[in-house]
């Protein structure tokens, strides 16, 4: 390892204001070498973001204070530096990119100007020179037409482009250290791969030091030189990548590694279906040449509104008791399909039949059936529950409206449901805001189960969760499916989980199903190029199985980006 650039010793941060001050960072010590990529992993709330923000003294709230410690940047203690000195350090020495580029880019300022702003301030360049430099940076981070993109606003970009812009903004100040706080969590695997490639490439080119925060061990395995694991405000373990992955010392690290989806599942997918498929049962769900379109406006003067085809002839059959995974990049139409099946989206053409009853021809009857026999679990656990109702009220309301349980039995049934999803019974009196994401997600599943459905459609129901919690939820589904003979439609863009849970997988791309088959087969031998690209972009926890993502020569990356980027922005 090269010379140490940044050295943190015994950094402690606590939160004031509440009755008893709580220690959030507990004597954290870390070093960062020049040109090194340090991976910071740990469960949600372990203090990763806080640590990084403390380095530049940008704490998220006034209630938080740095109690003690030193942060030496080439000998200068940043904790003692004056506010004016810090202005030069922030951006100029230490740049940051954030998890959510959408909320961190100024929506009302042109992307180019945001990059030029830092250049003008830190390098004192004039307007025109800063503009030139900004165009150069835009090209560096992979924008195909910097002149045009300089003038764009962030909302006109896809998620991946925004993250590149964010990186561009950070690079504009020519920092020595780049802190990347979960830079890819919100992105597709394919785009994630590109961004990670971009970061390592820049490091190779400029000897930039990077702190990469993530909760995906696969990401660290693929990019970092060294890994630090945090838990409860402490660094519990720190080592070079290989050493740490090969011989994790701390129990938490072991659990983290064990629950990573790229580790081959201990349980193989449910296999009972083969028998079922052979039986003469009719399919529970039949989707036939389904088209769904949304109006997408028109130009200033052209009158006719255009339509955007979100689903372009999708056909699908699901047998009772089957578990089908639906994967595909963001915007490929997965959620639209789910909603169309449940009659929540208008259908342009095609058929959806549930238990033989056709949604187009017998709409009311089919809807009635769907409402009582199918349920949905949603992506964002917080958003899927009414924040003003307790879990108990939420469940009770479903039971009452569905009228499947005697009013007197409602209470008992609620307890039963909570048991089923592994929540304590006293959660009945809690509101979503007082629960963690995983707990909310379980409540959401309990609500779906309250319907006593034959079919559950789970739309990205684990995407927002920690790996450890993800694993719990997947186990729960597996369990339920076994116990209750549920039919499960499992939507995700995380292929690893689908491989783990589902026996059959459907790959969607641009509103079409491009590949379909047994998970094992599809993942082993993808027949469609797009599926292959998706699979190869999964970061494996094994550092020796590197990303097969599109090779990052600039031109290629651009082509990749435009083909993978979402619908064109207007």
């Amino acid at each position: 390892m090269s010379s140490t650039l940044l050295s943190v010793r015994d950094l402690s941060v606590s939160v004031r204001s509440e009755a008893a001050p709580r220690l959030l960072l507990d004597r954290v010590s870390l070093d960062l070498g020049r040109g090194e990529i340090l991976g910071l992993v740990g469960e949600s709330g372990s203090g990763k973001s806080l640590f990084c923000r403390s380095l530049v003294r940008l704490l998220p709230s006034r209630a938080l204070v740095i109690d003690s410690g030193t942060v030496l940047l080439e000998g200068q203690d940043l904790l003692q530096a004056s506010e004016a000195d810090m202005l030069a350090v922030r951006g100029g020495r230490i740049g940051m990119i954030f998890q959510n580029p959408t909320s961190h880019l100024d929506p009302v300022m042109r992307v180019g100007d945001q990059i030029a702003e830092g250049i003008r301030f830190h390098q004192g360049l004039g307007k025109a020179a800063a503009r030139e430099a900004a165009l150069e940076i835009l090209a560096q981070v992979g924008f195909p037409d910097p002149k045009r993109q300089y003038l764009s606003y962030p909302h006109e970009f896809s998620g991946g482009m925004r993250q590149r812009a964010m990186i561009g903004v950070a690079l504009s100040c020519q920092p020595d250290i780049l802190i990347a706080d979960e830079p890819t969590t919100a992105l597709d695997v394919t785009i994630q791969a590109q961004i990670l490639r971009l970061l390592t490439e820049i490091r190779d080119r400029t000897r930039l030091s990077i702190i990469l925060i993530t909760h995906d061990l696969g990401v660290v395995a693929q990019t970092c030189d060294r890994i630090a694991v945090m838990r409860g405000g402490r660094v519990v373990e720190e080592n070079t990548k290989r050493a740490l992955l090969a011989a994790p010392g701390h129990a938490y690290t072991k659990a983290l590694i064990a629950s990573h989806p790229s580790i081959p599942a201990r349980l193989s997918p449910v296999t009972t279906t083969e028998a079922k498929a052979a039986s003469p049962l009719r399919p529970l769900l039949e989707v036939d040449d389904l088209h769904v379109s949304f109006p997408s406006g028109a130009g200033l003067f052209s009158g006719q509104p255009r339509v955007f085809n979100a689903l372009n002839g999708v056909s699908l059959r699901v047998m009772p008791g089957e578990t089908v995974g639906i994967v595909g990049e963001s915007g490929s139409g997965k959620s639209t399909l789910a909603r169309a099946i449940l009659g929540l989206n208008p259908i342009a053409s095609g058929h959806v039949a549930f238990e033989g009853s056709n949604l187009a021809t017998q709409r009311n009857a089919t809807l009635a059936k769907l409402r009582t026999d199918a349920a949905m679990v949603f992506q964002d656990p917080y958003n899927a529950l009414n924040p003003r109702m307790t879990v108990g009220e939420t469940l009770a309301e479903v039971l009452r409206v569905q009228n499947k349980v005697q009013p007197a039995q409602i209470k008992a049934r609620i307890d039963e449901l909570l048991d089923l999803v592994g929540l304590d019974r006293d959660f009945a009196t809690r509101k979503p805001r007082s629960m963690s994401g995983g707990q909310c997600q379980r409540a959401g599943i309990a609500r779906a189960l309250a319907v006593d459905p034959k079919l559950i459609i789970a739309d990205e129901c684990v995407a927002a969760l920690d790996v450890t919690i993800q694993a719990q939820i997947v186990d729960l589904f597996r369990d339920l499916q076994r116990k209750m003979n549920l039919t499960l439609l499992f939507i995700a863009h995380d292929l690893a989980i689908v491989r783990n849970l589902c026996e059959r997988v459907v790959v969607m791309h641009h509103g079409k199903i491009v590949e379909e088959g047994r998970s094992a087969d599809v993942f082993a031998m993808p027949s469609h190029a797009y599926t292959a690209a998706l699979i190869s972009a999964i970061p494996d926890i094994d550092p020796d199985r590197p990303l097969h993502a599109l090779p990052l020569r600039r031109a290629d990356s651009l082509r990749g980006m435009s083909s993978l980027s979402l619908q064109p922005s207007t």
Partner: protein
Amino acid sequence: MARPAFTPGWSKAFGTNGALAAGSAILALFVLAALFAPLIAPYDPIAQDAAARLAAPSLLHPFGTDNFGRDILSRVIWGTRIDLQMAFFGVVFPFLIGTVVGTVAGFFGGVVDALLMRLIDIILAFPFLVLMLSIIAILGPGLSSFYIAMALVGWVSYARLVRAQILVLKTQDYAVAATSLGFGRLRIMFRHLLPNAIAGSVVFVMSDAVLVLLNGAAISYLGLGVQPPVAEWGVMVAEGQPFVTTAWWVTLFPGLSIVALAFGFSLLGDGLGQRLGVAE
């Protein structure tokens, strides 16, 4: 501003939310004044005293007297009854109408929404004064005409606020979930969406209450406020106009009462905003 007494119970109930506590305290003072007006007002608010006309504030008349020799302190205290009532009813009906209309418009969208939005445009573009004066003229002056006029116009703001919220909320997963679980529309609108959409309106109620009082005062300035000899702050300010340069106390004290109440309302609004997570 009155300094409210913070008992332990208070601080527990309001936490660190000083605005909420102070606002409630101010409002509570006014409510008490209204409730116990007969007990605390030193004089009959409409009793005239020819000997004490336009007397400056003194121990006998802490706020002075008006041109009929009526005690202004007593009138201010009794006025609390009318003004609180005005603030309350002037806001309640618009609030109720507005939230229902906003919910329906936002939820159903399409033609219903378009029609209601045009109606809102019309009302917003309609000169308020014409409406106000017309309604008062048609129904006769008095508080009920005032409330009707306020209700006819005031709901618009609430409808806009709620509608904007509902438009967002109805795309939220829990609304979609409610549909997918077979809940009825009324249940979704009023049990799931509205309670989550209403916080902004609740906060706005507080500003609106002040605007209602001011509208009342403006109407009084044009001569169509509450019927004499009833004491109402807006009317008192307007009636004191002729004496502004000679007997400042006639207008100042009722004016200050409006400000104090307004201050209470706006603090309460800020506090509620914090509480309900609308602002800040």
